[in-house]
């Protein structure tokens, strides 16, 4: 029976820039950073309190996963902010919002109390958006 999730993929436009965003701005930890040949890299990061959950920062390249046309289409979709890959959680949304803003993270929605919780929305350097919610105290 399925017990847990241990990998999830986030498609990014540039892995170097994504590394800087997720590690230096969001404060995620590098799990695996493996060069796999010219222009190829397996890069996974984890949220600080979930070392067993690897977020794979996947490049969008023509090859076995994408054709040239589908890679181009995917890059356009990513940079248009089509995908919301998930919901992150923090202990204090207002403090986290101020800190991430100070580090240059772009918020598309500032912290707001919704019927389902206290939430903000931000984008990564590629255009992917995420919800950021405050853990119930």
């Amino acid at each position, binding site marked *: 029976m399925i017990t847990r999730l241990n990998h999830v993929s986030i498609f990014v436009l540039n892995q170097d820039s994504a590394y800087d965003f997720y590690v230096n701005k969001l404060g995620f930890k590098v799990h695996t950073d493996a060069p*796999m040949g010219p222009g190829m890299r397996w890069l996974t990061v984890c949220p600080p309190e979930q070392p067993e959950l690897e977020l794979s920062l996947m490049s969008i390249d023509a090859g076995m996963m994408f054709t040239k046309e589908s890679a181009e289409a995917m890059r356009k979709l990513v940079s248009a902010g089509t995908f919301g890959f998930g919901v992150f959680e923090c*202990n*204090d949304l*207002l*403090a986290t919002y101020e800190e991430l803003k100070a580090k240059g993270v772009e918020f598309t929605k500032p912290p707001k*109390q919704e019927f389902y919780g206290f939430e903000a929305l931000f984008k990564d350097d590629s255009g992917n958006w995420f919800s950021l919610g405050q853990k119930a105290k």
Partner: protein
Amino acid sequence: MHGENYPKVYLYRRIVKAKLFIDENFAGDIDLDHIADEAFFSKFHFIRLFKNTYAKTPHQYLTVVRIERSKLLLKDNKPIAEICYAVGFDSISSFTGLFKRLTGQTPSAYQQLQKKIREEIKTTPLKHIPNCFAEMKGWTQNSNFEEVH
């Protein structure tokens, strides 16, 4: 409550400023009075607000930042004594003790483990990649990854 107009925005910005000050100056000889001054708080008020926000006192947070930075330097194979002083500890025994308390292993054991993982990633990276992704990327067709390095 939303946007830039939430109550006490100025308090949050000062606490965040203090946290970022710790993030940037952890290696130096900083103390609580110095950090509280940076945020324009009294020491008592500062500790209370910081702990409410980050679930750690400023001193506990400073220790965590130093230990996390030491982990990066241990991965780079730097000498342990050098790392101890580089991240702001003033004694190897206190560094080692705190490292073990927070991570469950000594700095030396952590360094050895990271060295082993690094070697493994260099020679057999596929051990660290789910096979489905490796196949989709065409990496299972190349078995000699040592040439990449």
